[in-house]
């Protein structure tokens, strides 16, 4: 076996540490998540037993928390695509320590999000009707096809760059773990033909997954925008949803990065600059979102049809005003300020901004769904929607499931892309050595991120 240097050994040890050691706090956290999921499971049992009458959904407002959560989770699934694929395509070297987490957030978020249309159905057995009676002309079918394709592509894209790292774990472990990593590493030896083929399919996937990801959230928006309803009848919904998805996806990634960095002591690899760079991305996306809001509401408000007036009153002054103004000020205005002002341009500033953004983006999806459905289509009194304990419980369980899947992931799979970080470090060291001959030997032992 080729001898590895102390820096590479430390990287492998750090990545392997979550698998080798399990603390008591880990079990307490796992138990808490399982308890929340179990409670959500009981709430879903109640819904299955008694029907959707146990929720706040009725014929006038038939989409509520469930569809809000569906759109939110599908949105944050864009984290992996953006960080991993787009930054890989653009050869942004700083991405390497965060790609694995981003790709995993994508897969986990898609798994959680895809459950919600089924939960919202009330009768899960009716999912088969989408297959049996689906029509290609329907946005529902586009959605099912797009999400299924994206999930398959995301799992593939998560798995491919992990193969060399799984082979490292295979060589370090014994017993059932060795068997597991042997299967997952698919006989990786690192020979040149394998490297060449892997590089080809990773490159193919990083190109392929970007249009797939964009199509997914565009199609999710078309479930709304293909209606003639006030509030949804918009031509910019596709672009607006894709921008919102990247916005909330990066915010979620920042929060997950901060937690995992603290818990698994990844400070050597995930540096402040990673948070700041992602923060800049958040600030840019916030400006795009502000522009999208102004463009959408000014153009529809200038014409002000009867339904639009009611919708705007509800949104800006009425029942949903608190939500809207929190979203606009708390989610779009304050976060970029936190990121751009030098005093708060640090890890905690960016994490605080990301938290504000995630809450705001969930709320945005809520009023896109509910405030629009509140606009009466016929002469009847506008109806109200209030989620019941069943909906709150299922929503809580979905976030617990999200946390559980990430918690289990870090116990099984390499949290950092070892070979990519190593390659990136070698490339940057070579570049430095070429520009300053004689300094290469001095760089041995320096952290990867710091050397980039």
């Amino acid at each position, binding site marked *: 076996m080729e001898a590895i240097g102390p820096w590479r050994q430390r990287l492998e040890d750090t990545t392997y540490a979550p698998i080798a050691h399990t603390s008591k706090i880990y079990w307490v956290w796992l138990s808490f998540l399982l308890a929340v999921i179990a409670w959500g499971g009981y709430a879903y049992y109640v819904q299955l037993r008694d029907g959707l009458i146990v929720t706040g959904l009725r014929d006038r407002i038939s989409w509520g928390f469930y569809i809000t959560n569906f759109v939110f989770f599908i949105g944050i699934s864009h984290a992996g695509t953006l960080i991993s694929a787009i930054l890989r395509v653009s050869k942004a070297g700083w991405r390497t320590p965060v790609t694995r987490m981003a790709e995993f957030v994508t897969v986990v978020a898609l798994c959680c999000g895809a459950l919600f249309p089924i939960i919202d159905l009330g009768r899960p057995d009716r999912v088969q*009707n989408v297959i049996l*009676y689906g029509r*290609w*002309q329907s946005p529902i079918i*586009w959605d099912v*096809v797009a999400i299924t*394709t994206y999930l*398959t*592509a995301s799992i*593939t894209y998560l798995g*491919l760059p992990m*193969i060399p790292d799984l082979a490292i774990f295979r060589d370090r472990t014994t017993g059932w773990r060795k068997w597991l990593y042997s299967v997952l590493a*698919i*006989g*990786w*030896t690192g*020979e040149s*033909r*394998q490297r060449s*083929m*892997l590089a*080809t*399919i990773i490159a*193919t*996937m990083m190109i*392929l997954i970007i249009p*797939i990801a964009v199509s997914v959230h565009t199609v999710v928006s078309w479930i709304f925008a293909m209606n003639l309803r006030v509030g949804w009848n918009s031509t910019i919904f596709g672009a607006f949803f894709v921008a919102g998805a990247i916005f909330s996806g990066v915010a979620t990634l920042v929060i997950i990065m901060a937690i995992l960095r603290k818990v698994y002591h990844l400070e050597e690899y995930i540096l402040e600059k990673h948070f700041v760079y992602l923060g800049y991305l958040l600030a840019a996306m916030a400006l795009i979102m502000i522009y999208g809001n102004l463009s959408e509401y000014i153009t529809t408000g200038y014409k002000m049809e009867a339904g639009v007036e009611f919708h705007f009153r509800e949104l800006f002054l009425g029942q949903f005003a608190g939500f809207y103004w929190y979203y606009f000020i708390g989610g779009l205005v304050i976060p970029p300020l936190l990121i751009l002002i030098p005093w708060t341009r640090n890890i905690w500033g960016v994490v605080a901004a990301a938290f504000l953004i995630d809450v705001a983006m969930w709320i945005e999806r809520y009023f896109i769904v509910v405030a629009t459905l509140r606009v009466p289509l016929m002469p009847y009194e506008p109806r109200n929607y209030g989620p019941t304990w069943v909906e709150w419980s299922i929503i809580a369980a979905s976030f617990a499931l999200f946390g559980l899947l990430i918690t289990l992931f870090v116990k099984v799979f390499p949290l950092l892309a070892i070979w990519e970080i190593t390659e990136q470090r070698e490339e940057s060291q070579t570049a430095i050595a070429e520009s300053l001959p004689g300094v290469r030997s001095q760089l041995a032992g320096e952290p990867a991120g710091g050397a980039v």
Partner: protein
Amino acid sequence: MKRLVLIAAGLLTCTVLALGSAATTAHASHLLTRVSEPTTALVGQPSEVDAAVTSADTGAPVAGVSVTFYAHATFGRVDGFMEIGRAVTNSAGVAAISFVPRESGTHDIRVDYTGSAGSAVEQTTAAIAVDGAAPQMYVQKAGIQVPGLNSWLIMGLLTVVWGTLIFIGVTIIRIARAGRADGLALAVPAGRGSVR
């Protein structure tokens, strides 16, 4: 004998014709339903469906009462009568609605009438034969037909995407085989040749 057979055949024919006419005109104790001419409707064209309410005792028309019209429908495994309209009887005791059939074939129409409070609902049914092209739910009249912009485009895109994913799956198998071959080559002692 021959005359007897002819008389029997004539009676049978009259009975069949009478039963056939009852398919479009039926009546309960208070209610008489009929479909206005033409009895054969066309897909997408409005047809008037009438229901006449008469007194069971005197046979006189009953004006100013409401009747509800239903059409039998099947959609997504749901099978039953769907309300298609309500109307109030005029001075001749006739209530009428306009019905636009969306599918060809025979449509069963049911008319419900509730008399005085607490009395049972009276129902009567009639059938309308609807002619037309292939069965359809919706007749599109507006829109621009762009050649190639249809479901085949979606099929084509999906074929490209899933074809690429299958190519990646096959390459993963090739990587695994290359690894196995490499492992075997390493396992063969020097001087005994290589498996590759």
